[in-house]
């Protein structure tokens, strides 16, 4: 591991563990802080891996991450919630009870959520497909501004279409998966464990895809579209697949984000929070490396949470009123600094063609050595 990476991780970990410990001087409070922190990191890591599939591997530029994240969160929520009642609730769906059709295993606790995550992925795949067909052929800087625009329009729709997802009030009281099985105080461990499993599945799946021949074509497209095209690869099709795949991951991340939070509203899904933060995570962690995306989520969400911890100290007014602006300034500066000083990120992409090739080379070398040894004797 590069010394800079090591130093950054050590400092951030010291802050994340040290600040709550220093403030509370109590191991239990530190755990109370760390477990939800880890849950959030896992959720953002899933979204960042989604962006990594699009940008890190394929070089498809998406400045509208928040759009997919939001669609996923809302679709997930309307699958888990019960139908709207009362005058302050107007939204479509509410399939929670209908989907809990299994008479055993307490299916209301998890089945609608499972459907919700899948539906969120499917909805984002559809949105991505419809959008990608016209825009993916564009020059990459046009892609940037059109994806920002798409995210903005989606956010507008969620606000303006009052009957769709409850307008500016957003959706509250989203049922949490498995929450009926444990004591509310212990629920954070459950969701943390669930998220770790989800992140592990996503990581293994995407790593496998990236190392497959399919993943190699994605990187070929990123490096040189014309060369990939000359080798007989349908560049547009591969970009489309990567865009849709990444969007599915973002949507699923959004769905579990909604479940974890229990409430979502248009205020949550700002470009700063939903797009810029994820981009910072990926760039800081290292585009083209899924472990980098996870590390980036850890570092950047760490910075975010540490700011909240610092807020608990007795600060002078001058600083207290500006704490969050200072954090935002740091985030903006960090992304520029990383691009300038360490563009490959904390965990750079591994230049690896294929593990099969490596094995084959190793086997050939071994055979050569054996043959040489046999000739000598």
């Amino acid at each position, binding site marked *: 591991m590069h010394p800079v990476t090591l130093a950054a991780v050590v400092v951030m970990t010291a802050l994340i563990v040290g600040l709550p410990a220093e403030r509370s001087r109590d191991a239990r409070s530190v755990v109370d802080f760390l477990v939800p922190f880890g849950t959030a990191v896992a959720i953002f890591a899933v979204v960042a891996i989604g962006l990594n599939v699009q940008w890190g591997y394929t*070089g498809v*530029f998406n*400045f509208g991450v928040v759009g997919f994240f939001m669609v996923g969160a809302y679709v997930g929520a309307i699958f888990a919630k019960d139908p709207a009642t009362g005058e302050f609730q107007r939204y479509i769906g509410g399939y929670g009870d209908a989907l809990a059709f299994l008479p055993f295993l307490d299916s209301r606790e998890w089945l609608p959520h499972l459907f919700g995550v899948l539906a969120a992925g499917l909805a984002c795949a559809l949105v991505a497909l419809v959008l990608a067909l*016209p*825009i993916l052929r*564009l*020059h*990459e*800087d*046009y892609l*940037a*501004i*059109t994806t*920002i*625009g*798409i995210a*903005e*329009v989606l956010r*507008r729709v969620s*606000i*303006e279409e009052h009957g769709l997802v409850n307008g500016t009030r957003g959706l509250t009281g989203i049922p949490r998966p498995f929450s009926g099985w444990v004591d509310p105080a212990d629920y954070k461990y459950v969701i943390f464990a669930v998220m770790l499993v989800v992140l592990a599945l996503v990581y293994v799946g995407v790593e496998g895809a990236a190392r497959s021949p399919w993943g190699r074509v994605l990187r070929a497209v990123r490096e040189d579209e014309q060369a990939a095209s000359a080798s007989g690869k349908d560049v547009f099709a591969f970009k489309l697949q990567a865009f849709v795949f990444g969007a599915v991951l973002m949507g699923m991340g959004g769905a579990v984000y909604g479940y974890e939070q229990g409430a979502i509203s248009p205020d949550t899904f700002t*470009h*700063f929070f939903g797009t*810029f933060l994820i*981009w*910072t995570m990926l*760039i800081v962690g290292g585009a083209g490396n899924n472990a980098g995306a996870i590390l980036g989520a850890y570092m950047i969400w760490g910075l975010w949470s540490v700011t909240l911890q610092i807020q608990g100290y007795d600060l*002078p*007014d*001058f600083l207290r*009123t*500006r704490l969050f*602006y*200072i*954090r*935002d*300034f740091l*985030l*903006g*500066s*960090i*992304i*520029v600094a990383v*691009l*300038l000083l360490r*563009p490959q990120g904390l965990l750079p992409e591994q230049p690896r063609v294929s593990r099969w090739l490596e094995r084959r080379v190793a086997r050939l070398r071994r055979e050569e050595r054996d043959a040489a040894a046999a000739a000598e004797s």
Partner: protein
Amino acid sequence: MSVATGPSPLSAWSRARTRDAAGAAALWLVILAFGLWAVIAHTDEFVVGVVVGSVFALGAIGLTLIYGVLKFGHFAHGDAMMLSAYVAFLMLSGRFVGSRADITAPLRLDRLPGARDPIWEFSFGYGLLLAIPLAAIIAVLLFLALDARVYRPLRERKAGVVILAIASLGTAIAMRSILLMVWGPQQRFYAPGIRHTTELPLLGTRVVNDQFFIVAAAFAVVAAVYVILFRTTIGRAMRAMADNADLARVAGIDTDAVVRWTWVVAGTLITIAGVLLALQAQLKPELGFTILLPLFAATVLGGIGSPQGALAGGLIVGITQEVAVTFDVLGPGYKFSVAFVILMLVVLLRPRGLFGASA
């Protein structure tokens, strides 16, 4: 050289050119018809659209210049506009947030004799007009420093438009947080109090007097940029670099100097646009991001690198979005989505815009 067989490439080229010219003519016809219809059917919205569109145009001129010469989407444009508008506010009123309450600096333009007395029937006095060049100097220095420290190293590394765009997004976030640190999230005005209005002859619509100034400024700035680009040596060098930076360098043009001059002009344009945006709406930190989409729509619609295109694009986007929300199908919240629809249509149907150089 090989001997051409089949249809001559030249005739294919001229056919494509004719088809292109026909497309452009059709596009202009649609735009003019829409404008005429808007004047008659939606006079009030048309007038508001012209004012809003002028503000878009002012921002888009700077954006199109940076896009054309430096070849990247400057995502910090809106936030830079707001930041320089706030700097002008500081020059004028000397106010910023201290620990909690506002502090007023003793050194400020307001204290000059008569600086606050309204010129004609505008809401502002000559203090604001003085604040613009002072704020512009600060903006230019900021951009020169940013280019030297951020954009130039990235360009020299051949980092590509996307990396430059992400870097500019990072500076946008940093600029907005500086603005929030110094002036806080509350809305501010250059000159509080009522705005006088005038009824337009023939159209029968009332217009805030300041808006005359905004529209006139938009046209004046476009004319000034046109003169710079097409009548001065540095403008010729900028256009040469916009066409082909390597060729310009080979031809003996000091491209580093051209880049610096581009930022000087762009910083000045950004300040003027920011102050007039704040005059039209108010000083509000999040306005910088909100305006980004219409600015890009206007830039792409007009054709990247063309000042007159930015003016036309800004006006078209402004008028369309004001008129479109009068239809029942669209709520007023969709205003900025209209800019996006225009952007998409242009990018898909005519990526080089109304005034863009033909490919």
